[in-house]
């Protein structure tokens, strides 16, 4: 855990953070709004005292209430992984800016997040489905997607009994969405 890194981040991005900076093991986590993604990631990438030139991972997350885009970054200037969570994307129409202007290689990761969660990355010029067929309708990694129901609509949608465990057949539909406590 790099305590001084936390202080540096707070000093630089203090007002743009939407939550406290958390540290655990070798990870530092900061939460920002989707509107600040471009400004903050550009600053992290370009400013020599931060120097996060390396995008380690880009992931979509559905928390059950909101959507998130999670960036993991690496820099020489700290011993921690930096996790930037763009929080609070609406589940009905999740939108986040693309980071392909900084890392061209994020293009396919964004396509994957679009394919699996339906997150629209504005500025990505190739945002089409990458794994699922082009005429596929749902977004498989969303928490309201149940293999038993949604996959059955697509051809050959057989489901093994093990995967049904989360869906009590008599539960009301609202309660089905698994959520994480914030």
């Amino acid at each position, binding site marked *: 855990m790099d305590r001084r890194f936390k202080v540096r981040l707070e000093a630089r991005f203090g007002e743009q953070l939407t939550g406290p900076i958390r540290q*655990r*093991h*070798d*990870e530092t*986590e900061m939460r920002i709004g989707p509107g600040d993604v471009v400004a903050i990631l550009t600053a992290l990438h370009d400013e020599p005292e931060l120097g996060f*030139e*390396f*995008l*380690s*991972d880009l*992931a979509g*997350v*559905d928390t059950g209430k909101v959507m998130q885009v*999670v960036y*993991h970054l*690496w820099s*020489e200037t700290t*011993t921690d*992984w930096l*996790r930037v969570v763009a929080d609070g994307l609406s589940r009905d129409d999740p939108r986040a800016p693309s980071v392909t202007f*900084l*890392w*061209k*290689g*994020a*293009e*396919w*990761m964004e396509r*994957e997040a679009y394919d*699996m969660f339906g997150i629209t990355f504005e500025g990505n*010029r*190739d*945002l*089409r*489905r*990458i*794994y*699922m*067929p*082009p*005429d596929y309708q749902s977004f*498989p*990694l969303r928490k309201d997607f149940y*293999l038993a129901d949604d996959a059955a609509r697509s051809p050959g949608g057989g489901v093994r009994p*093990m*995967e049904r*465990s*989360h869906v009590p057949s008599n539960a009301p539909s609202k309660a089905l969405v*698994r*959520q*994480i*406590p914030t």
Partner: protein
Amino acid sequence: MTTTSAPSDDPRIELDRDLGVFEPVPPYPPRTEREAEFYTLGDGQMFINVGPQHPSTHGVLRVVLKIDGEKVVDLDPVLGYLHRGVEKLCENADYHQAICYTDPLEYVSSLFTEWSPVIAFEKLMDVQVPRRAEYIRVLSSELNRIASHALFLGWMALDLGGLTPILWSFIERDEIVDMLAALTGQRMLFNYFRIGGVNGDLNHEFMSRLGDWMSRAAEQIEAGNGLLNENEIFVRRMRGLGTIDAKTALRMVMTGPNLRASGVPFDVRRAHPYSVFPELEFDIPTRSEGDCLARYLLRMDEIKQSLRIIDQCLHQMPDGPVMAKLPRLMRPRPGRAYAAIEGPRGQLSTYAISDGTDQPFRMRIHDPSFIHLQSVGLMMPGHLIADTMAVMASLDPIMGGVDK
């Protein structure tokens, strides 16, 4: 025949029926800017469809090439033929089961794909792994790295039309795989790493096979390399092919040998050390050319470093337990963990979220093959169709990992 526009002097073959499913142009209007640009033909250009069943695609990959004569102008990889939804399956399995779902991602280096979720789960549960278990992990996975690189060498030569190297490299690989089978009980999908340690201590058969092999490994691998290193046809074909410079490689978020061949000394084992790598001595080979030959030679240098690491592991192996004491049913408290390791193809990482139940709430798997495959499009323009296979082979993608 197709919906493409072609110059009027182009002699068309008249077909009395449709071409079928693998017609290169998709049967729907373009969805994005890039797709519209790609599927519009310029003067004298045409499409050619490679795959999904093609021996050089290392799995089930379809690539649409846009060609001008014999030269590739652009290409569009079409993925998803092997998509199994591993992330979703992991969300519906408990923490122990999730590990074995990650095994077949990179099916030639399974120990690595197990390792990153195992570290992530250990972080979620604040588990302290016994030192002997860490050494066994490093030892077995470095063996697996050699097996994977040996296979890379064989496959690449096979894609270029050479049959001998794959027969030679399978000798090495088979010996290593037999060793690991003695250790783990499986030849390919090991399922050996557990949360908190490994499944079973080193045994006599493994150690005697390893000692036997170590005494002649360096020599044997050197002899195998001589087949290609000194082969003028091979070297002249690979040199200057598929070049990518350091800056572009970083922009394409490449990792592993492919990034180091462009001159960036980034290795997760040193950049963000995990396990017992801080205690071990090894170099990070880099090359500056960034072409196919550099990527090949760099992997051969890595094999030597892996042998060094194995040697040190054998000398420094501490005594003690190989598993931490843990409850059978694991319910980590809500939290998030990220773990990255250096696999034979690059950085493999897992981002796991726990919601307090015995199943991961979200498990993101980042696979280097997926990332590297998208930069083929940058390397290819201007090269010949036959070189697509060479470039793709030099990046060493495994489709199990690309399609997840």
